[in-house]
């Protein structure tokens, strides 16, 4: 898994609420058996018109907005458990998603793929949207160690929460499998007491 410590980037504002995993990656693209290449179809039905041409009204196709931070409306990632959604976001090049609320499974999937979900207040989210709209070159800094996100243009910052175990994993690029396997003796002991 990619390590994550600190990131400074411009951001892409997706001011839509309840972005569900079917929008992030439609079900018809879930037929692959590897993790790669999902970025191509990220937000497929919003990004492209039916005949395959780019939908210029969609924010990802607006070249003014660039960067590896996605700023999205409330309740991002609701719906299915498909990790393909996190893979698509990661594969497209996003390292951070900021929202005022994340669906549970998506949040876990993102963390398991080195994508940091940053939950901020609705007010701060509005501030981000309006600053990015004012100036698409607005730089945003996300500091995992300090659990802090800062709008560098105004200096306005806020803290976000992340559990300390997941934070350590992200900073070091660890995933859960190694940790679980290192506890196998205890898992076996548990099985024996249960049986």
């Amino acid at each position, binding site marked *: 898994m990619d390590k994550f410590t600190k990131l400074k980037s411009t951001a892409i504002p997706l001011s*839509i609420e309840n972005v569900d995993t079917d*929008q992030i990656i439609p079900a018809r693209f*879930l*037929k692959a058996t590897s993790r790669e290449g999902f970025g191509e179809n990220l937000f497929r039905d919003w990004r492209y018109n039916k005949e395959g041409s780019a939908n210029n009204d969609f924010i990802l196709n607006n070249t003014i907005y660039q960067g590896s931070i996605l700023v999205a*409306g409330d309740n991002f990632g609701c719906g299915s458990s498909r990790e393909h959604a996190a893979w698509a976001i990661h594969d497209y090049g996003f390292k951070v998603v900021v929202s005022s609320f994340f669906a549970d499974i998506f949040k876990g999937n993102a963390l398991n793929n080195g994508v940091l979900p940053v939950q901020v207040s609705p007010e701060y989210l509005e501030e981000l949207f309006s600053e990015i709209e004012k100036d698409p070159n607005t730089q945003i800094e996300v500091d995992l160690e300090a659990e802090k996100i800062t709008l560098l243009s105004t200096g306005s910052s806020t803290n976000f929460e992340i559990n300390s175990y997941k934070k350590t994993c992200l900073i070091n690029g660890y995933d859960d*499998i190694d940790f679980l396997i290192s506890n196998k003796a205890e*898992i076996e002991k548990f099985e024996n007491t249960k049986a």
Partner: protein
Amino acid sequence: MKKTLFDKVWDAHVVKEIQDGPQILYIDKHLIHEVTSPQAFGELEQRGIPVFRPDQIVATADHNTPTIDQHLPVKDVLSRNQLTQLTKNCEKNNITLYGLGHKYNGIVHVMAPELGITQPGMTMVCGDSHTSTHGAFGTIAFGIGTSQVAQVFASQSLLLQKPKSLRVSVNGKLKPGVLPKDVILYVIAKLGTNAGTGYFCEYAGNVFKDMSMEGRMTVCNMSIEMGARGGMIAPDETTFDYIKGRKFAPKGDEFDKKVAYWKTLPTDEGATFDKEYHFDAADIEPMITYGTNPGMGIKITENIPIENNASFEKSLAYMNFEKGQSLIDQKINYVFIGSCTNSRIEDFRVAASFVKGKKKANNVTAWFVPGSQQVAQQIVEEGLKEVFEEAGFKLRQPGCSACLAMNDDKIPEGEYCVSTSNRNFEGRQGQGSRTILASPLVAAATAIEGKIIDITKQLN
């Protein structure tokens, strides 16, 4: 200390607590299917990690399978490849697979309960968010991502933070024609799609107590649509009767011993929840959705609410509906009865009782898709197949089908589909499709009339 049903099951599965961190939770049963497992098998193979407890894993093929001509090779190359991969992975790792055409094949959340794999007090996971279905048995069951599928393969455990607890109580008498689907659509419409995020939900009150296991599964299935990872209902005699005698159910003395344990699971009187909601059964009516998330639901007789915000308006524009509009008499060309929410025998009984002696509307294409081979067989045995055929409906073969349109069962662009499935997201049933969620009764009535009707008038 007074404990909830959820606490009791969870606490009995904690292998270890990590200081200031998550807990290692032991998983009793792991269900897998073709879409969310290949990358997990791949990861294990790549890292040289064996599957730890293959006998606690059960596999089925359901998500991308065709619902006609299942005896023929699957036409779609990518789907066929995924199915082949599943077969190979199961063979290589000694995992039981009920593949396409097997008499136990079906949608994972339909076949596992009907085989008695799902039992009270267990922890169950699957790479599918509707795993919450199994909570109907007093089971902690929830959907996981593919990285977690790999973790369970490797260790039969997961690293998790214990969720908070939520209880939704519905008491009183349901009106005629109000089905479990209406109850859960009503609850989600009232609470919204993220009220349950971070929580595990228990459904309590006489309404759930009086429900069949099929009805309870419909309710628990949609817990994720209000954000809750899982939903549970206390096991009782209805639960025990359902399990008894099923293929993988405990037998003889072992069954009695289990029942004695299961009886200790219901929430202790006086146990507290982090959040509680109460509803009156008499307030619930047949429901339909009008928007692009399951929280956008109304009573079938109500008008679409008038809200002024961009996301709401975007949603209505997609559906081509107006604020304040009634959906009664809305012409509908597609009807889908199926999915892990409503494809069990009871759902087809309800549909059959309505369509009996009537004829399908000419404008309607209807897909009736049983949840499993066993349900399909029961439909024949109970004579429902004839009822459907006389009314002009044809049954298809089991699978997830038009719920997520990974196979050929796609609703065309711009068309409305009254669907018994669980999600009305944009494009969920095919690019540009417009989904209206409803109960099997409302779906059956729509298929007969070719439009949405006020079903309450026929019932009173």
